[in-house]
């Protein structure tokens, strides 16, 4: 991964964590004072939130410094390396979106586990398999196996609850 990408990731992660620890720290003000022990329930989350905020800010600053350094990149502008061409962040985003939809439809009780899993595995397998017909066919078969076969195995062999 290039230095610039690491820099952006550091700034993003650092900023997010500073905000998160700020929210946590603010929430600790609602914790009642200690009754039985000298420390109470608020102390550890407050100290840890401050430590996280401080370190996250340092990481974000390190990211900003990294972004300021001109990248010693040997590649020509506009030329994409083989490794870069093989990364597909949009595929990953689509996969995550499909995962979220899968959880939403089961969570609201719209679709039971077996059907939801069939559609999810088929859709995700097709998308990640570059939408090739062969990949779609195999994904559909796998979806049937996991959805209906999985439902039987998980409930009757392992006795697990499934989202209905």
């Amino acid at each position, binding site marked *: *991964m290039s230095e610039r990408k*690491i820099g952006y*990731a550091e700034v*993003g*992660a650092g900023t*997010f*964590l500073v905000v998160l620890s700020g929210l*946590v720290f603010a*929430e*600790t003000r*609602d*914790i009642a004072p*200690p009754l*039985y*022990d*000298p*420390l*109470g*329930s608020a102390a*550890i*989350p407050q100290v*840890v939130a401050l430590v*996280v905020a401080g*370190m*996250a800010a340092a*990481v974000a600053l*390190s*990211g900003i410094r990294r972004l300021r350094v001109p990248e010693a990149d040997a590649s020509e502008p506009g030329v994409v390396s083989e490794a870069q061409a*093989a*990364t*597909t*962040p949009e595929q*990953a985003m689509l*996969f*995550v979106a499909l*995962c*979220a939809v*899968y*959880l939403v439809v*089961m*969570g609201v009780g719209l679709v039971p586990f077996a059907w939801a*899993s069939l559609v*999810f*595995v088929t859709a*995700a*397998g097709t998308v*990640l*398999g*570059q939408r090739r017909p062969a*990949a779609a066919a195999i*994904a559909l078969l*796998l979806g049937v196996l*996991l959805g209906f076969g*999985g439902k039987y195995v*998980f409930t009757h062999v*392992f*006795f*697990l609850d*499934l*989202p209905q």
Partner: protein
Amino acid sequence: MDFLSTFVALLAPAPFFYILLGTAAGVFVGAVPGMTGGMLIALTLPLTFYMDSTNALIMLVAMYVGSVSGGMISATLLRMPGTPSSIMTTFDAYPMARDGQPERALGIGIGASFIGGITAGVVLVVLSPPLSRWAMLLGPWEYFTMVLMALVLIASLSHGSMLKGLLAGALGMLMATPGLNPTDAQMRLTFGWHELDGGFHLLPVLLGIFVMSQLIKEAVTILQRPKRLQIGKGSVFLKPGEWAGHWVNLLRSSVIGTFIGILPGVGSSISSMVAYAAAKASSKTPERFGTGSEEGIIASEAGNNANVGGALVPLVTMGIPGSPIDAILLGALILHNLQPGPLLFINNPEIVWSMINAYLIANVLMLIIMVATVRAIARIMYVERSFLLPTVFVFCVVGAYADSSEIFDAWVVLGFGLLGFFLERAKIPLGPFVIGFVLTPILEGQLRSGLMLSDGSYLPMVTRPVSLLFLLVAILMLFSPMLGTLRRRRAVLGRPGKQD
């Protein structure tokens, strides 16, 4: 129940089957690029809810042994470590395989894994009972400073900068604080969501961090296809005579791996790195390291397998995970209503001895399985990831939902998966996060108990000798990188430390 009687009991068909199944599954999954032992164990854990506790735990331990060894296969043939602990193995095993000796590279790795595992097993058997008795003498201050030391250790030894390691550990601690606090039954940091009344449950967090983040990472690189080397017809089983000249390296690497494993929180990738560095420093041909050196393969594989056994020592004697994967085993103990800690040896000796014996038997089975099936695994280990990723996610959802019957936990998997993915993009390691998450309840509970016993005084932390020792180690680990930087800067500026 003692060592021998439990050993004999595990040779019965049912428990032996679980150890065999666990080892075989671990070897195969460890060999598949993109799948790790942590993922396998985390995904299997919910499936063991209704199993007998002993059978569940011995199967999970066997998976751990198998997966650390299985990672060597893809490291050798694909130059992709199947598990993080096999990273150092790629440096020498792949060049050796590429130069026409894949069978020898695999054979050396398999043999070294076996020796490393058995060496650690001996230490595990000898050290665990007295250590568990000693651990009973520890009080809350000793536990607090030991956990603190574990967090600093893993942060300082993890990949990349120590600041990021400490940040990851602290973030894990922060994520462990929401919910009902057991010390005083106070509800905190729920942000008004009743789903957070019990805090973030361990299993969904582990599935998110270990599994989901890896799935997203694999989705980003799904078009990358590694070139696979073929195994010839030569034997991968090396006769005892072929190990001549390697015994010192074998033993040294095994001991290094074992004792680094005993350090709380430090995983097998660190062991293999340290063993590799030690082997290179003492080698007569250090220039060969990284080009196909047999010594390099031996050091890495003996070190990482020995770490597995070493890491079981603090887990079974003190309830402190010796590595991030041991954090999952800790979760398994809790899920099966077993209380981790020094009393585990007293109250459930059959469980502890079963885990230890399962570890030893799994190492023997690993050797047999790897020698017998490595060719078959090499042919099928590259599983088309476009089908693997959605399948694994379905298993994650099932596992998370099974824990609490709440879809919220499946969202926790997705959420922590995204968090883990972006943390890794920023080169913030995930091992310290998991250790911080798992150890925080112990850390906070022990600190508050200690303060109640001492009427609010922090003095016992420094007046009790063992507590002071742990605290000093933590401080040393925290500041030693800074001292190193200072010394290097002085050398660069040409300022002598002493006048001649």
